[in-house]
């Protein structure tokens, strides 16, 4: 007697169920395929969505979730920051880096007197917020211009290019490009950067406080609000942390909704398994009658049929998980740049899809099993 036989002899119900499943191969394959679709739907949507969410948060992080943006509040008179205000903010936030900027617009006077609007950020040193891709900013930066990567690419600019910018209707001043910034997803970037000395007035309309973590950004924002916005709103303090939280809720909601839609396909799979099992039970009526006649109890019949349903479910889940895993890897590769960058969320979705698939098949098998077990052998064997 082979070892395999000794092993299968320990699990006779599984052996009988497996033979029954493999008897109607096409029917079993179709029922399992329905589960595959359900598992793929839930697993791929869930895990893909998780990867998408992760990538969005990463880019938000890159856009400065560790930064606190401060603008003049509605009660601030006058409606901009001067040196003193920046100093006061600096005192409040302590050691964190404070970058004060002023936004503006100008007309770029091009050949043939064509004019094009460009956005300007006036600041002390662009390097405090951005990295330089090409060229260098001189020690004493007073007249030259720094351009953003996108702007340089679009117009074919590089170090040593020249731009004439005109405020209002004047003829404008010509600036030499000294540096091109590296590309950034950065929040609040503009086309060109000029030294604060070039601004019409030494006023700032935004202060950015750089911190090292999202938590610090939050506590810095709180400190600023407490210090300046006690009675009147002198500062408009804005940090991305709260936005991240809101976004998280929204993305999670959408993901749960989509996964819920995916679960409908598992419901369909359950109906398909019930249908398959009912047909099998009707086809095997006499056979089940013989089992009952030779001493198999109702519980034994139920067990055999439930195991059959679960076998269909397990086949579906194994194949479905494999496919969902591949789909999720592709999503990971697209969104996160690494096929194996599974987040705990996406693994949870895959696990949930598997558990749900098997549970569905179990529930789907219950009615046919109950019906077969309650058929009286007398009726089944009457022919």
């Amino acid at each position: 007697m082979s070892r395999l036989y000794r092993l299968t002899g320990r699990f006779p119900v599984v052996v009988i169920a497996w033979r029954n499943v493999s008897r109607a191969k096409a029917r079993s394959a179709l029922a399992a395929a329905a589960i595959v679709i359900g598992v793929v739907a839930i697993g791929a949507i869930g895990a893909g969505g998780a990867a998408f969410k992760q990538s969005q948060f990463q880019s938000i992080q890159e856009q400065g979730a560790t930064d606190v943006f401060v603008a003049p509040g509605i009660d601030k008179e006058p409606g901009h920051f001067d040196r003193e205000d920046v100093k006061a903010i600096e005192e409040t936030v302590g050691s964190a880096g404070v970058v004060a900027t002023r936004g503006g617009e100008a007309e770029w006077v091009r050949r043939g007197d064509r004019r094009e609007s460009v956005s300007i950020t006036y600041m002390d040193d662009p390097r405090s917020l951005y990295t330089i891709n090409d060229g260098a900013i001189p020690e004493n930066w007073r007249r030259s211009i720094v351009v953003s990567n996108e702007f340089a690419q679009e117009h074919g600019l590089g170090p040593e290019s020249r731009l004439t910018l005109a405020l209002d209707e004047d003829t404008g001043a010509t600036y030499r490009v000294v540096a091109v910034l590296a590309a950034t997803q950065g929040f609040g970037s503009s086309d060109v950067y000029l030294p604060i000395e070039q601004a019409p007035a030494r006023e700032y309309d935004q202060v950015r406080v750089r911190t090292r973590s999202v938590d610090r950004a939050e506590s810095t924002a709180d400190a600023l609000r407490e210090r300046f916005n006690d009675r009147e709103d002198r500062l408009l303090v804005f940090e991305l942390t709260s936005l991240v939280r809101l976004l998280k809720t929204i993305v999670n909601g959408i993901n749960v909704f989509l996964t819920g839609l995916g679960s409908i396909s598992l419901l369909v799979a359950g109906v398909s398994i019930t249908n398959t099992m009912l047909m099998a039970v009707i086809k095997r009526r006499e056979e089940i009658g013989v089992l009952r006649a030779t001493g198999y109890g109702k519980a034994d019949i139920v067990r055999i049929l439930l195991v059959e349903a679960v076998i269909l479910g397990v086949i579906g889940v194994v194949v479905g998980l494999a496919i969902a895993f591949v789909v999720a890897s592709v999503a990971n590769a697209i969104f996160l740049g690494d096929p194996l960058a599974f987040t705990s969320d996406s693994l949870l979705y895959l696990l949930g899809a598997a558990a749900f698939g098997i549970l569905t098949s179990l529930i789907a098998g219950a009615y046919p099993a109950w019906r077969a077990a309650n058929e009286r052998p007398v009726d089944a064997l009457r022919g």
Partner: protein
Amino acid sequence: MPVDDRPGDGDGNEATTGTPLISGTNVVKEYQTGGQTIRALKRIDFRIDEADSVAIVGPSGSGKSTLLNLLGLLDVPTSGEIRLRKQDVATLSDSERNRERKQTIGFVFQSYYLIPTLTALENVEMPRMLDRTPKKTRDRATELLERVGLSDRLDHAPDELSGGQKQRVAIARSLINDPELVLADEPTGNLDRDTGDQILDLFEELRAEEGVAVVMVTHDEYVAEAADRVVNLVDGTLRAPDTATRADGGHRDRE
């Protein structure tokens, strides 16, 4: 199976020694069909002893199958009493009847009812598969298949076997739990005469060797002749066999 002419008295086995294997008193079975009550068995008495060989003969619709279901504990009578040894089967729960059936009774059917996904050997093992005694079961099943002359067909699927071979497998299956009673419903109904004769001979041999009581239901007088006792079932009542068919009145001495 004698027609017990005495009115239903207590345990009524003065005629033979010992407790009958299975006995019935005033057994009535009714069915509800489309609002009508059909009386399939009308107050019949019967008894089957150990190693009995009985043929129940009757036309279709006479109540043969109903009686067989009652003997096989697959059904309970509407009224009257059936005793397995001394136990009133009406007092047994569903699962107890299941257990008694498994231990005491083997079934052989006209259409064999082998499970197509299992080999000959596995079909024989089937009633005992859930016992988780694979070694013992396999040894016994192999022995039984050898006994019915199929030692070279152990691993064949049912559809690779002839009708006679299938019925041999079914007979081996009915014996796997060492029952005291084998109930055979038209066991030769799907077989030609020669093959049928071989099956009947096999039943007779097994009865002699294993001491199993064999009850056959048939509408074929020829098959009935192979049994020690013949009982006619007509219209739900038992009748003494036609003297034209059986000169000895239905109760022949067993060797």
